[in-house]
């Protein structure tokens, strides 16, 4: 008897929960093909909600995000390419709407900047290594050709002094 009561309560609870889940579900989008649906999902993930600073179209509850999801869904159904859909939205909302900005004159610094900094860094390291090498070479054994010649000349002079002329004259 008690078990039956428990089961009834459980079923009732599940039913209420199901009702709640249904009420809070977001709009459903129907597509003719799986491929269209996949593209719709991919676009929603990479397009940014213009009202919210850092949410994609999926993640936003803003009315404008819902309108844009509907627009994207319609354009996918009508057979527009991903590129056409992105272009359409960029022409209205600007580059802001793309999470992955395109390469234009305005965004060039964004794309190229890190590589420029990388090369500057590599250049600094190369100069430092070269300076250090030169320092260690000068500090130990090697002489420049000029120094080598001078050394030979001085040695020759020394030998000539020692053998030829007597110290007294």
């Amino acid at each position, binding site marked *: 008897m008690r078990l039956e009561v428990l089961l009834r309560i459980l079923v009732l609870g599940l039913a209420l929960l199901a009702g709640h889940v249904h009420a809070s579900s977001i709009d459903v989008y129907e597509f003719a093909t799986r491929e269209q649906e996949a593209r719709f999902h991919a676009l929603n993930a990479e397009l940014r909600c213009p009202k919210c600073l850092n949410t994609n179209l999926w993640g936003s509850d803003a009315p404008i995000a819902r309108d844009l999801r509907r*627009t994207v869904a319609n354009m996918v159904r009508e057979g527009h390419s991903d590129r056409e859909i992105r272009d359409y939205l960029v022409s209205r909302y600007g580059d802001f709407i793309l999470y992955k900005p395109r390469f234009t004159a305005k965004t060039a610094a964004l794309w190229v900047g890190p590589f420029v900094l990388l090369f500057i860094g590599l250049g600094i390291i190369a100069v430092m290594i070269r300076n250090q090498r030169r320092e260690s070479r000068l500090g130990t054994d090697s002489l420049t050709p000029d120094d080598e010649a001078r050394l030979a000349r001085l040695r020759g002079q020394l030998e000539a002094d020692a053998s030829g002329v007597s110290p007294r004259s």
Partner: protein
Amino acid sequence: MRAPSATASRPGLHRASLFIPLGVFLLVLLLLWRGFSLGDPHALPSALLNHPLPDFALPVLHEPDRIVSSEAMHGEPFLLNVWATWCPTCRAEHAELNRISKEYGVPIFGINYKDNPAEARRWLARFGDPYVFSVVDADGSLGIDLGVYGAPETFLVDADGVIRYKRVGAVDQRVWDTKLAPLLAELRDAS
């Protein structure tokens, strides 16, 4: 004699390199200063600036049988205001639009954005109607064509229907005096 001169210049180089942290610090300072002085990060630059108004064919709020296009607005520079009864900022801005319409004689057209038309008509009857007419954008499709992402938004459009300025948020007296009025005067002089 290259070697001695190279060793002589190295201390100088060393001293200059002491200033690198200072340079980096100043650079970071500049970037932060620039970043924090951007103002409202919500205000996106309009992608439609200096572009013609998108085409549309929508019913007029007070004459639902009359369908108009953007050409019905051309002729002289005008304001195009996106509004709705569900938008509290539109309510706050409304008095200023009434004032601008009365004092400056600039035509103001409305886009009643995703609203209930009956409620919208009541709203205008109650708070005053500054609009030559409002078009009904029930599903927000004209809004998307205009890059609208929240009401109110106001466009300043020249006589040929080219968008010259966009204000996201309420038009108050400050915005009118500092931005819209000077631009409108410029457009009026040009046409």
